[in-house]
């Protein structure tokens, strides 16, 4: 899976969870800067990503996610 493709899917998931019609993200985007972000959406995001990409995330991995790039790296590594 190409990085852009992964970012595209991650973007769709985030838009669903935050109920946004439009969203600009880049690898450098900090996830806690997203509009409407809170601890509950964070859990939803990781749960939905794990399901979408059929991966399991460990506690350490979840705690170290800061940016979209971190998410993309994890997904690439796990798939």
């Amino acid at each position, binding site marked *: 899976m190409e990085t852009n493709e992964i970012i595209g899917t991650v973007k769709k998931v985030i838009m669903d969870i*935050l109920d946004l019609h439009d969203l600009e993200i880049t690898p450098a985007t900090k996830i806690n800067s997203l509009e409407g972000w809170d601890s509950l959406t964070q*859990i939803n995001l990781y749960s*939905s990503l794990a*399901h979408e990409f059929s991966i399991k995330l460990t506690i350490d991995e979840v705690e170290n996610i800061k940016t979209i790039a971190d998410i993309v790296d994890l997904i690439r590594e796990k798939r």
Partner: protein
Amino acid sequence: MKDLLNYPFDSHAVIRKKKAIKRELLGGKETFQDCRVAILGGSTTSELRDILELFLLKKGLKPSFYESNYNRFFEEAVFENARLDFFNPQYVIIHSGIVNIESYPDFADSQQDVDDKIKKTIEKFEMIWTRLFEKYCCEIIQNNFELPHYRILGNLDAVDHRGRVNYVLDLNKEFALAARKKPFLHINDVHYLSSMLGIKEWFDPSYWYLYKYALSFTAIPLLCYNVASIIGAIIGKSKKLVVVDLDNTLWGGVIGDDGVSGIKLGKDTPQGEAYLEFQNYLKCLKNRGVMLAVCSKNEMVSAQEGLMHPDSVLKIDDFAAVKANWEPKDSGINKIAAELNIGQDSIVFVDDNPAERELVLGNMPGVEVPNIGSDVVRFPEIMDRAGFFETVSLLKDDLHRNEYYNQNVNRLQDEGKFGNHDEYLISLQMTAEIGEFNRTYIERITQLTNKTNQFNLTVKRYMQAEIEETLENPEFIGLYGKLRDKFGDNGLVSVMLGRITDFRNIHIDLWVMSCRVLNREMEFAMFNEFVGKCVKKGINVIYGYYFPSAKNGIVSDIYSRIGFNKVRETETGATVWMFKPTKKHKRITHKIEIKGLFHGNE
């Protein structure tokens, strides 16, 4: 989008799209009934709140929520709690699980030690239930326990008194016994739900360690769906009628083409056996009081032939209505609903044909149309897990429901013989038992109050405990009515509750009547008796109230018909009426004889 909530649903899609689903549910035209739900958790509950909200909105309930602080369910229930007092919950969900069990058996424990631990645990929960009920007169929904995540004793864990599996099963048994004794306590059967999903899927340790969720995100929608079903059942939102197709639904093949000998039904073939099992399932539903009807594209004679198949468990008499013709199914279902006098939202439609399901889903928004697929071996489980027929009690009245409706079919046929409705009513030789509320009927009174949508003047819902408070209370006049005629007993079909103020005024807070006795003048008989009681108590003025809802249009003019004067009308169409009772009150109906207490099959 809200179709995502239809059973069987995709849990991940529900969670991922919850905000959009909520937006859509709230954006529709539907009016919602408000309710107050407190979630007292032994683990994190935020996601539960969000998802439960969706399933309640889908049922037409708009909840406001109270959430306890993390793992403070015991303290917040038992001790002084001004915040919860202020919230004054109607429903309290105790979301606890095995992570909240404080003491498990030790290996050195004797059977007596283990029994003591069970007793202590139950006492703690009893304290929660009793305190909450005393304070709020609320309905309590209590999780029972899922099985432990591991088994130190292996298979012996389920056998030995020190095994945790054995211990948890004993606790669940105690919960069940408590719920039998307390009508306000409802068990959310987490043990069953988690077994259905698999305990491996139910609990995800990383969600526990990271966020303190005691169940996985796959499990949350399942649990919430179940809780919403229980709340729905308490207020009478459960389904009452299953309308089934015939060909490839009740048997394999097409009766019109294959003939009785050609359809697959019975133990001779695997398919035939599966259809038989589905028929058995429906028969069990019927026996517990759910009505059945047929809506099939067939000649009537073919339908009858099929149901006379020697292996058919379901016979034509098992169905309250049979429509076999070539009309569109939505019109068939509409006719069935009209004949049986029940609302669209009380119906489940079962058909193997996706095009028919689509048609009914599109044209009849209230009807539940489960996607049962086309493989009969899955039909019973999909129907069952959807929880359409959830009930909080099983009363004699439920078990007799099919008889009541079958008698109505006979009445309907009989009515055709008479020149006018009055003659017909007289021919029915009706007798009524109308008496003051008493403990024998308290459950049925509550059930009827909360289930009735059409003949319901105020659409107020009452908890059983609230009805109990009116018993032998001089400030209330509560009457129930049972009706019987030459075709049989209709059971307890009407309830009135008046609240006295200033010793001389009475307000009819509640007046309901089952739709199975509409147009029988039972409402007049009830009112006559009510007036009689009022006169005895020296009441000067009776105030009647009508609050319009989506379904109670048929009673909008009842007070004017029985001689009340309109006092007020609001912009929303709510009306207030008054009536001065006198000893010389003219009886409005003479067609129903009022008898003493009935005895026999109630």
